[in-house]
Every structure is written in C-alpha cells, then in structure tokens.
C-alpha cells in the first residue's frame, strides 16, 4: 500500500440553478487571454444536451480515455505509444476550434465613436480568429435550458444510447445542469497521452497540471482526455487546463468556481487513496464494477493502518486530519450519495456528483401529489426509469442500482427532515429503508443543506518550507526582454520571458490614459483618469490657455457647458475623492 492524498470535489446537482457564475468567474480568473478565448476550464451544460465541445462524450468519435484489452490490461483508446508518435504530425482525433465554437468579440468602438446620425449604431460581432464579421451560431452553452434542443438534442451521445420512445418522453420530462471542470483523475489518460512528459499529476495533492515550459504542442492530451478538459492555446501553441486553482488551494482557499458558487453546491476536500491499486481498479472487466472498485481504492482515514502508512509515505499529520474531516470522504464513502462522472472511461475521475432528485420531485408535485412524502418519492424513483437510466449512463456506466440508491437516500432525507420540521417526530423507519440511521440522515442533511464555508471546504494549506518566488520580489527593470532589450514576442505570441506585473500595469495605465480617442469634442471619460492632476476637458482652459490641476483650487469652477454632462456641478474636491 502506498498512500497518496488527492484534492477532490463533489457537486450537489440538486442545487445547481445553471447560473454560470462558476464559469464566468473561472474565465475571468484563468482564460481571459488571447489564444484561449474559446476555453472554459469550468462550463455548465444543460442535460440532455450535446455538451461542450459538441458530443464530447462520444468516444467512438473522439477516442478519449482508456479501454480494457482482452488480456485485461489498459490501453489508450486512441492507440498506444507508437500509434501516438505515428500520428503526431496530424492528430486524427483532435477537435477543431469549431467543435467548441468560434470565439468572438463585438465592435464596441462603433457604439462610442459613431458621429450622431439617424441610425442607432450597432456593435457587430467580430471573429476573434480572423477579426472579420461573423454570424454567431454556436457557443459553450448554446443549448442552455434546452434552447434549440429540437435541433441538437438528438445528438446527445447519452440519449443516442437510449431508445426512441425514451427519447421523446425525456424531452418533456427532465432537465438538469451539469457543471464540469477537470476531473483530476487518479489514472489520467491526458498525462499518459503526452509525448513530451509535460503533463503530470502532483504527488502532494493529485492536481493534474501542464508544465508550460515542457509542453511542445503535440496536442495528444487534448484528444486523450475523454472529458475534453485539456485545451489547446492556439496562440502560444501549448496545452492548458483547469488547475484546480492550485495557487488558492495551496494556501487553503477553495477554487474560484467553488468560492463564487451561489448555490453553495460544491464541496472540496482531501481523500487518501492507495496508488498501488489504481491500475488494478481501473481495469476491472465489468464496467458496472468500476464505481465500487474506485470506492475501494479510496482509503479510510480513520483506519490506524492507513494512518501509519500515510505517515510513512510522507503525508503530514495535519493533512491526515484534513482527510478525516473531508466532506468528500463522507459523501463518497460514508453516505455513498456521490457518483463519478463516466467511470467507464477508466480514468478514475475525482470530481463526483450527487445526482439530482428535484426533477423527480417536480414530476410528483406536477401530478398533484405530495412531493416530500417518502412513499411517493420511492414509488416515483421506481417508476421514473427514464431519468434514472439517463443518470446511470452519466454516473455509473449504465448501472441503475447506485443511482437508485443515491436518489433514495436523498428522498429519505427529504421526508425525514420534513417530519422533524413539522414536529411529527423522527421516523426511523424512513432512515432504515435506505440503510441509514436517523442520526446519519441528520448529519448528511447538515452537510448537504446548511454546511458552512469551513465544512464545505476542508483544505489544508500546502507545506512550503520556502516561500514561493513572487513575481514582484523578482521584479526589476533589467529583466530580459525588458526596456532596451527589444521586447518579448520575438518568436510569436508570449514567447520569451514574462513581463513583471508591475511593469505591465504601468504600461496598461499609461496606455489607458493616453490612447483613448474621443470623437466628440469636450467629452470627458472619468474612467481613464487616475485621480492625479486633472483630466483633459474636465475643466475649461484658464486665462493662460493651459489646463492645470494646480489652478483648480480657487476660482475656475464654472464648467464648460458643452462638455461632460453633470460634471460641472461638482467641485474638484468631489472628483478627487471619486478618483
């Protein structure tokens, strides 16, 4: 037994309202750069739907993940090492940018600088690939809330596996959201696909990362990942992926997507697992046994033997303690309500999901019955085979039993807790029907419904004996490629040494203050004013014809009547405070 720690996530799909806050904040933090305009490390899909990139779950087409050979060994679906090298000049399974979507921006300048005229100016969409006008016809969540689903839903690879009649019924019955990030798998096929060895799994916390200095842009990881969560930066020519916000995790903070989730549906924590048994577990013959095999690889952090082995393998004691307090361990192993996404890819994913019960509840209440009554709920779970089969295709390789069990536990929790709230007493029989005790159900309820920040995110800080090299500490003006050295980008975008943040900010600010042109004379843009001195056009020129902050103290407070709309009512003191 070799014990390793893995930072993992569980998402409670019942609570997801599909608001995309996680996606947007993640994008702002990580992929608001050129070359990754089309990239969403975190995206939220409406299911049923085709997903992002389109139909990524169809591994017959994309060739991601592992398959088990007849001899019981694992092999990359898109071919082994020699095969990979033979296709290195043209990867046959690589999704193109258009399989994600063509990124665009709008010609906002038109809105600001069009001279007054009869027509209202419009901001036309411009392709970020060619800079030309484009027709927007797809995006990362084009089929959001089943929008346009008549056109696209039949392409959902999961629905395709199900029968025609199911298909039709499904459309009316069932919809839920699936937020996705990188799975940080225990057996990552992207890492295995990387010819350069640039991708790696971190020993300390299991986060899967790309070494940007070692990546050579062979693109095999993009096609190797069955979840399509490794992306190709088309400007730098390197692979990028969700980092599980490791700079935050290292100091004990949750990821940006978790932190900003308005539904508070994400849980973060450690699990300990036996790395020696991963390969064996990933290659069990029956796909339906993969879930249990993966659960078995995860070790009990309270077991004295495990604690001893963990200490021997260099896991610090506060990390073992964090693993014991981990909400992930509780949801995966203790309550067994969380399930992995597509275990049949055999990558042993470590972002798990609690399947949504709410659609089932909706069906019951929609038919005029009591949606919180245990018997109604159990009967509905029994009867609503279609949504359950769909969930099973997502989370258990098609085995409905674990989905069923998980939903029953959620249903039991619902009616058990209602009993308490209506002061009908604690009905132990409800708990027993799902193999739990009343106390356990209450604990699970606390974790799923009202857990506080510190209960949802149990993240031990990394042990850094040396302080990280901070960008600012290393900053000086004589960095390579700096002033006087010809500048970076000699070999294409982003090549060469990075520019220190301070220098970059200095130029950005100077640029903002000087470059903005104004088509309308006298217009003042206070956003471009840094608060020092005065900005052009804010005050009329004084007797000497110059605009100077020092002259503002006293007399010239009457504003130019043409310019700067309500600005004239304020004295300079107000503006200075505003800046």
């Amino acid at each position: 037994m070799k014990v390793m720690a893995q930072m993992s996530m569980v998402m409670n799909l019942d609570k997801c309202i599909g608001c995309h806050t996680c996606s947007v904040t993640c994008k702002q933090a990580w992929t608001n750069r050129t070359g990754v305009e089309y990239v969403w490390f975190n995206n939220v899909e409406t299911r049923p739907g085709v997903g992002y990139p389109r139909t990524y779950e169809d591994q017959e087409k994309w060739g991601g993940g592992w398959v088990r050979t007849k001899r019981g060994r694992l092999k990359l679906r898109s071919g082994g090492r020699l095969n990979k090298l033979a296709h290195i000049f043209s990867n046959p399974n690589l999704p193109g940018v258009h399989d994600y979507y063509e990124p665009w921006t709008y010609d906002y300048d038109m809105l600001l600088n069009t001279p007054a005229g009869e027509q209202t100016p419009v901001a036309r969409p411009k392709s970020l690939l060619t800079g030309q006008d484009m027709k927007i016809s797809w995006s990362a969540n084009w089929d959001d809330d089943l929008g346009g689903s008549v056109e696209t839903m039949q392409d959902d690879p999961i629905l395709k596996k199900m029968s025609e009649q199911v298909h039709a019924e499904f459309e009316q019955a069932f919809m839920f959201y699936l937020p996705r990030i990188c799975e940080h798998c225990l057996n990552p096929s992207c890492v295995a696909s990387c010819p350069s060895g640039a991708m790696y799994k971190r020993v300390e916390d299991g986060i899967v990362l790309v070494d940007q200095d070692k990546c050579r842009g062979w693109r095999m990881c993009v096609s190797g990942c069955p979840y399509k969560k490794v992306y190709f930066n088309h400007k730098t020519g390197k692979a990028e992926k969700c980092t599980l916000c490791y700079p935050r995790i290292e100091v004990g903070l949750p990821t940006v997507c978790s932190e900003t989730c308005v539904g508070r549906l994400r849980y973060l924590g450690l699990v300990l697992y036996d790395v020696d048994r991963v390969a064996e577990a990933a290659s069990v013959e029956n796909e339906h046994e993969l879930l249990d095999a993966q659960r078995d690889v995860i070790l009990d952090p309270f077991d004295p033997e495990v604690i001893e082995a963990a200490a021997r393998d260099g896991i610090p004691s506060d990390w073992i303690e964090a693993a014991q307090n981990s909400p992930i361990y509780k949801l995966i192993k203790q309550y067994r309500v969380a399930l992995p996404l597509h275990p049949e890819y055999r990558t042993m994913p470590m972002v798990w999901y609690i399947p949504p019960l709410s659609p089932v509840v909706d069906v019951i209440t929609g038919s005029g019955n009591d949606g919180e009554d245990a018997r109604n709920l159990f009967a509905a779970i029994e009867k609503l085979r279609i949504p359950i089969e769909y969930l099973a295709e997502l989370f258990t390789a098609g085995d409905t039993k674990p989905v069923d069990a998980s939903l029953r536990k959620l249903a039991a929790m619902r009616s058990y807790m209602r009993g308490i709230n209506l002061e009908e007493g604690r009905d132990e029989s409800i708990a027993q029907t799902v193999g739990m005790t009343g106390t356990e159900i209450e604990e699970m309820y606390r974790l799923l419904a009202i857990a506080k920040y510190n209960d949802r995110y149990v993240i031990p800080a990394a042990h850094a004996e040396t302080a990280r090299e901070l960008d600012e500490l290393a900053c000086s003006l004589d960095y390579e490629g700096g002033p006087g050295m010809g500048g970076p980008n000699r070999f294409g975008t982003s090549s060469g040494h990075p520019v220190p943040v301070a220098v970059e900010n200095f130029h950005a600010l100077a640029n903002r203050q000087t470059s903005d042109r104004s088509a309308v004379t006298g217009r003042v843009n206070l956003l471009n004013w840094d608060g020092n001195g005065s900005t052009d056009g804010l005050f009329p020129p004084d007797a000497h014809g110059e605009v100077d902050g020092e002259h503002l103290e006293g007399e010239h407070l009457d504003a130019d009547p043409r310019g700067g709309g309500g600005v004239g009512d304020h004295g300079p003191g107000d503006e200075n405070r505003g800046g």
Partner: protein
Amino acid sequence: MNPLSMLLWVAFPYAAAAVFIVGHIWRYRYDKFGWTTRSSQTYENRLLRWGSPMFHFGILCVLVGHAVGLLIPQEWLFAIGINETMYHIGATVLGTAAAVFTLVGLVILIYRRRTVGPVFLATTRMDKVMYVFLGATLFFGTLATFSYQLFGTGYNYRETISPWVRSIILFQPQPELMAQAPLFFQIHALCATALFLLWPFTRLVHVFSAPVQYLFRPYIVYRSRDEHRSGTRATRRGWDPVAAPNPQRLRRP
C-alpha cells in the same frame, strides 16, 4: 584557393554551425515557453491532414538519405558490396520519391497558410523568412536531383560534396571539393547553410523535441510540487489580453 570559395565553403558553414549550436542553447535557456511546434491544426484540418504527414515523413526520409549519402564514405558501402550503380539507382529512386512527397506536402502547407485566415494571422515574420529558405533549399535540392540524377547522366556527389561535408565536420576543411560541384548543388548547400543559421530562431527548434522518450517512460507522470520550484528562474506568466485580430492583415498589401 580564391577568397570567395574560402568564404562560401569554410567561413560561412562554420559561422552557421556556431550560430546553430550557441543559438539553440541560448534559445532553450531564454525561451522554453516559446519552444513549441506552434501547431495550427485546431484552425484547419482538411488540408493539414494531407499536407503535414506528407511533408514531415517526406523530410524524415530526406534526412536519412542525406545522412547516408553525406556522412558514410562510399568506400565503406563498396566494402559491404553496394557498388556505385546500386547506390545511384537506390538513392535516385528513393530520393526522388521523398522529394516529391516533401515538396507536395510543403506546397499544400504553404497554400493552407496563405489562404486560411486564422492560420495566416498566426504566422510570424520569422515563419515567413523560414519558409523562404526552407522552400529554396528543397527546391534546389530537388532541381539538382532531377536535372543530374534523374534526367542527366548522374553526378557522383560522394566524391566531392560528401568529403567536403565530412571535412567541415572534422575541422579539416577542403573548400576546393565543393568549389567544383555543379551550380545547383552549390546553391542547395548555401540555402541549407543559411537555414541552419536561422534554425534556432524559428519554429524549426521543435525538431529537437521529437518525443522519442515517450516510448520508454511510464504512462502516468508524478511530480512533486517542490521539484519544479527548486530552480532559480522566476515564476513566469506569458499571456496577452484578448484582442480581435486585424483583418487588414489578411489582404495582400
């Protein structure tokens, strides 16, 4: 020995070799982040699917052919029973096939680079310079093969050009050997030397990243977070904010 042939067949090759070696070391230390194939497959795959493998496999064959023809003395091949006729026929047939493959591949790739908008916008100035020299080298090499070997009487470069290459490598340069070679061969060699000179400053550096080690390493790579921090280099962040490309650049001036 005239000064011109001294310059062209001794000074220039050594200068190029020096720049080639020092340049690569410098580039690797200065610009690991920029060291990439800069693949454009995500933009366009229909043409690349044909052009790229044709060009790359073709040029690998050309490379092997050059290694055999230039580095192995003909006496060694005579010794194992490969006489001049056998060598000539083999080299001409394989060489012509590889040249055609490579050139057709390159034409497809350059056509693609010029006509597919996103690919053209992702082309750097250095790429364009490199294409000129790469294209010229291939063109004159093919021209020499066609005019002398395929349709001509055959020119035994293993008595002049090959010993010259080896003489350069062994630091006992014999420029007079190269000075008497036919013009096409001379231009080919000069273009190639210039290409070697440019090599470290272009995307051609990816040749040295051929991932052969992939065949021998375990599938899953584990790495400690402290390992890659232990170096002395500063934490890097290479990125640009999103901006729409300028469509003017798509048009010919």
